[in-house]
């Protein structure tokens, strides 16, 4: 995806990027090209190579996108990732499993508990550790709380990208309270280190559960407010409906998962279709993209709408889990030095951004031989290389925002 030696913004734009309209096939049909073909083969136009640099105010992280634009339309696009690479996988080869878990938090730092959940599951499956049932329920509740927090952030930040500053701060109100909840139980607000190999670190106290109920009620009460400012707003609809279409075939080809895939119409959610942990005991709907509410299948509006709906579904799951939760220990009996037997395993889970996969190869030592994480944001951002051709720059911002990437997960 990245081209070594590619220096955008250099002085020799004209020389390198002249499009003469002759010989080269147009990358995608657009009226601009058709017009040029009609006007004349030797009409020279220059493409502008622009760099949406690693530092930009949109909070997605250090993503660098190099675009070739033809006036207002994007002709080609190249994301340059890797600015946040911290060798999480390589570190997995040098430290024991239980010391590697804090690093998993830092991959998708906006949905850290979900990362921990999948990674801990992978290590446990490999090592044959049986997690107590109460711990499983604790994990599901915490993961769904984290999903709500992550989606709230995605909803707010998307508004911020489009210029609606207010929902961004309103969602922080709910998110701060939720983070206080997770802070209370784990000691950290963003990076928790709560889900451990064999269970969870601490049990819920009565007052924590009461506080959780109050918070769930407040989220439910306030969710329609975000819709007033975003989903139901005409300006927002004009900015996101029919924009950034990722259809089913494109999504499958590029490996897009999560809300991006569901917005394209594919009814696929790992929690329901490949259930892990105790997700098979809950009833919840999986929102899928629809044509006609305001947009069409696979557009930015649908992706946003699905995230809002998923918050509602998570509320349902948490309430069911709270009702069903049995008593019991929250941590399995773990050996002093945990060794996984020789073998390999691939475990995947439904993160708020898509399918997180953790692949571990073990050779019997306390340290893994190789760990590989499949971050959903990596595929989600790769797809814009194809989808963003022909969009306007303002729509490009809407598209990248709707994919809801976290660079920690892209680069690991």
């Amino acid at each position, binding site marked *: 995806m990245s081209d070594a030696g590619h220096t955008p913004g250099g002085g020799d734009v004209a020389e390198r990027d002249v499009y003469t309209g002759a010989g080269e096939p147009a990358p995608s049909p657009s009226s601009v090209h058709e017009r040029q073909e009609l006007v004349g083969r030797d009409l020279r136009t220059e493409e502008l190579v622009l760099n949406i640099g690693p530092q930009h105010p949109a909070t997605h992280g250090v993503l660098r996108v190099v675009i070739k634009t033809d006036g207002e339309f994007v002709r080609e696009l190249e994301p340059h990732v890797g600015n946040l690479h911290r060798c999480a996988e390589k570190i997995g080869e040098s430290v024991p499993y*239980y*010391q590697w878990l*804090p690093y998993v938090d830092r991959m998708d730092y906006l949905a850290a508990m979900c990362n921990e959940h999948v990674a801990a599951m992978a290590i446990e499956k490999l090592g044959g550790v049986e997690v107590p049932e109460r711990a499983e329920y604790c994990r599901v509740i915490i993961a769904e709380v984290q999903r709500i927090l992550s989606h709230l952030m995605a909803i707010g930040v998307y508004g911020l990208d489009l210029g609606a500053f207010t929902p961004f701060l309103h969602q922080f109100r709910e998110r*701060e309270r939720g983070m206080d909840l997770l*802070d209370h139980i784990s000691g950290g607000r963003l990076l928790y*280190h709560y889900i451990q190999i064999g269970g969870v670190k*601490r049990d819920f106290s009565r007052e924590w559960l009461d506080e959780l109920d109050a918070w769930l009620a407040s989220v439910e009460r306030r969710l329609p407010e975000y819709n*007033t400012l975003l989903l139901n*707003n*005409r300006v927002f609809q004009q900015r996101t409906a029919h924009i950034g279409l990722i259809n089913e075939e494109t999504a499958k080809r590029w490996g897009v998962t999560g809300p991006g895939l569901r917005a394209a119409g594919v009814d696929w959610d790992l929690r329901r279709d490949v259930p892990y942990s105790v997700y098979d005991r809950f009833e919840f709907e999986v929102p899928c993209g629809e044509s006609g509410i305001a947009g069409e299948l696979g557009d930015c509006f649908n992706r946003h709408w699905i995230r809002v709906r998923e918050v509602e579904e998570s509320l349902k799951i948490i309430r069911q889990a709270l009702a069903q939760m049995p008593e019991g220990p929250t941590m399995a009996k773990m050996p002093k030095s945990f060794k996984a037997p020789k073998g390999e395993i691939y475990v995947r889970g439904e993160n708020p951004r898509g399918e997180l996969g953790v692949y571990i190869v073990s050779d019997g030592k306390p340290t893994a031989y190789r760990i590989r994480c499949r971050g959903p944001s990596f595929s989600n951002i790769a797809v814009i290389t194809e989808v963003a051709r022909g969009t306007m720059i303002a729509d490009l911002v809407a598209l990248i925002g709707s994919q809801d990437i976290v660079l920690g997960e892209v680069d690991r």
Partner: protein
Amino acid sequence: MLAGYLKNIWHGVSTTAKGMKLTWRHFFTKPTTIQYPDPGEETYFSPYERSLHEFEPEKCIVCFLCAKACPVDCIRIEDDPTKKSKAGKFLTVYEIDYAKCLFCSLCVDPCPVDCIHMGTQHDLAAFQRDDGGVKIDFMNGEGYWRTAETSAHPESGLKPHLERHGLNKEEDE
């Protein structure tokens, strides 16, 4: 067509008005901001808050379990084998490099004598990197101080501490 055009305008105006009504309502609600605590003010911390460590050196038996458990190897422990203390071995240096520390609290669980905890002090600001903001050093013997003193206060930090106790000749990396 004119009907569609006017409907569009009306839709735009009405959704804008609804959004404005919401922000108007918010204008009169109490803000949810908690202001940054001025020095000396109390502020809320979780009971399991993972900030700067609190270390009780008189209990430490220099077993190195915390240093082994640390994923980033940021704990440096040194002891003097010729001396003995009440708890066992004689601890001379206990240093946590906060430039590396993940605040993961993996050092807390293995301790057999429960002498290291994660505390609530979070203010690591200092004017220089080596001036007590990054490393905490502890010296047993003549005097020691708890990590809660480590802050941007000019009297705290390693160098002033060494001067206070006449230990300037000890150089650490």
